């Protein structure tokens, strides 16, 4: 299915963004300490919708917060009462602008795990109530490899509205979903510039091709998937993980990692239960109450991380749990590249 495409210029886009911000609860990349994190904004000047890839955190926290309050309780001699939980602050109707397409794709992957045996209603509500406006990148960053994975970046419909900076200098705004299409109807200013499909498609394709040509990293994901499923006992994991310092940053910035821990904090007689990010690279991640830890060694945790991304998730849900965004590699203090790791390990497969 194809939706309408509109063409505009820089000022038009700016007006479009301003109109979004004015009418909606809007989230956008806001700079803090040289880093872009998605925050609630009220003015366009607060954010940079075209923030650099390597410095932008994913939009995952807007759907799966870094720490979410599960419940609040009061324990007295009269018994333990679950206090009235606050309304989910992320459940309202909202718009995200400046999202990267890989981040949007990551949500599609996460949808699978969140609506599998148990449906996470919070996550689903947040997804349903959010319009994602994504700008297609012009140039791949050094660790990007989204074009090498099991989704087509060109036809990707994970975002509701796609903005493309055409190589002709024009800016194309295109709805990618019904939700996006309906959303665009609220902005009459850009309607004047509707393009017929036969004009829009080549412009978008041309931009994509120019973009796709900038990738340093290329791989054949089918081969990697295939080979990785056979390398569980590869000694390569040990040497590849040798310079990992188990800092967990990769998991915290990853747009698809979804492991969490539950913790209680109690003051006086009131307690709050939080659900917060955790990382399988953490040595205590698999520590059990009895003291047994099935993954005490670093390479085992590393293997789990790599294989979960490229083998286990694929086996269960048919998709890679990696969208090729390169965020983990950008964030890694010792520059370990997941791309290198999976490729080198799969090379050892028979």
């Amino acid at each position, binding site marked *: 299915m194809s939706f309408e495409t509109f063409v505009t210029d820089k000022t038009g886009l700016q007006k479009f963004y301003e109109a979004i911000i004015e009418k909606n609860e809007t989230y956008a990349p806001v700079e803090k300490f040289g880093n872009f*994190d998605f925050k609630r904004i009220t003015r366009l000047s607060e954010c940079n919708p075209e923030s650099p890839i390597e410095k932008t955190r994913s939009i995952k926290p807007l759907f799966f917060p870094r720490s979410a309050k599960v419940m609040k309780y009061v324990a007295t001699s009269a018994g333990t009462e679950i206090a009235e939980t606050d309304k989910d602050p992320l459940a309202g109707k909202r718009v995200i602008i400046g999202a990267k397409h890989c981040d949007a794709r990551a949500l599609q992957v996460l949808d699978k795990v969140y609506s599998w045996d148990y449906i996470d209603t919070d996550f689903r509500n947040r997804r349903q109530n959010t319009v994602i406006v994504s700008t297609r990148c012009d140039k791949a960053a050094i660790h990007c490899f989204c074009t090498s994975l099991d989704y087509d970046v060109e036809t990707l419909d994970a975002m509701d509205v796609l903005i493309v900076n055409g190589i002709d200098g024009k800016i194309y705004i295109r709805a990618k979903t019904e939700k996006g299409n309906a959303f665009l109807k609220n902005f009459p200013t850009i309607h004047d510039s509707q393009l017929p499909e036969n004009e829009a498609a080549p412009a978008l394709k041309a931009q994509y091709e120019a973009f796709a040509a900038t990738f340093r990293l290329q791989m054949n994901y089918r081969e990697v998937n295939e080979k990785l499923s056979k390398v569980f006992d590869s000694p390569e994991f040990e040497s590849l993980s*040798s310079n990992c310092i188990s*800092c967990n*940053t990769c998991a915290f910035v990853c747009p698809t990692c979804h492991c969490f821990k539950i913790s209680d904090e109690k003051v006086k007689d009131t307690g709050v239960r*939080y659900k917060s990010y955790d990382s399988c690279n953490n040595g*205590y991640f698999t520590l059990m109450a009895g003291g047994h830890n099935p993954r005490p060694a670093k390479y085992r945790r590393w293997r789990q991380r790599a294989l979960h991304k490229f083998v286990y998730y694929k086996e269960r849900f048919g998709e890679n749990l990696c969208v090729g965004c390169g965020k983990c590699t950008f*964030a890694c*203090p*010792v520059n370990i590249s997941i791309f290198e790791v999976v490729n080198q390990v799969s090379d050892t497969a028979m």
Partner: protein
Amino acid sequence: MDYTKQIREIATKLFTEEKIDVFVGYRTTGFDENQVPVIITGLEEIPKLIFNDKSVFNLTNYLKQEHTRNKRVGLIVKGCDSRSLNLLLTENQVKREKLFVIGIACEGVCDDEGNKMQHCTECMFPDAVVFDEMVGTTHDARLYQVNADVRELASKSLVERREYFETVFESCIRCNACRHSCPLCYCAKCVIDQETSTLYHGANTTSSAFHALMTWSLHLAGRCVDCRNCESACPMNLPLHLLHKQNESVIYENFQEHMAGVVEGDRGAFYKYSMKDPDDFIM
């Protein structure tokens, strides 16, 4: 500053003479200027080794990792790294006889953009203080100066400082990368991970970030060597050095202690005292 040749020569000698089992150094990423720490185990890997002003990461962190445990380790240390090594030796975390330390007379390292890092411009001890072999030309002693960022922030009003740090703690995502990348954070289980309902701070709230970072910086007070591994690891680019440098300036100015890790056997200001310590802040 490019000591690749010397490092490779020394590493070759060490492996040939079978003095070490592993060597911790740097290699290029293969695609950009930046470097990856690398643990090599034999002569055949020596051509990977490199050392220049992009060799930023403090390698003493690897002394707490399982790949070097109970092995004879060859190691490259810059001035700051050597101070953390000194503390690790003092705190009985590593055995000196198991190490072969290549000390660097460091000219300062550069960030991603190629600019000299701020702490290198302020560095008091660019030369390694612990080493078996020294590479480079040594420097004269430099005077202590309060970190420029700390000075600037301290000159602001209380409200401004509070607002600034509220942003810092709010931006923290509690990934604990700062702790893991710190060579001096080697506790079996960190105090902020202790699981008792009233003690536990695993949640990622501003309050818990405040708690975690404050506790962390106080545990490093008088010990932080300003290698900035924590900042390079922080995915949110938080100015973590501010906390450490603030403590350092208070300690240096009030207790006239040595800088952390400069003197062997010196554990840092919190583990000793003087009768002459300031008392005027106490009623």
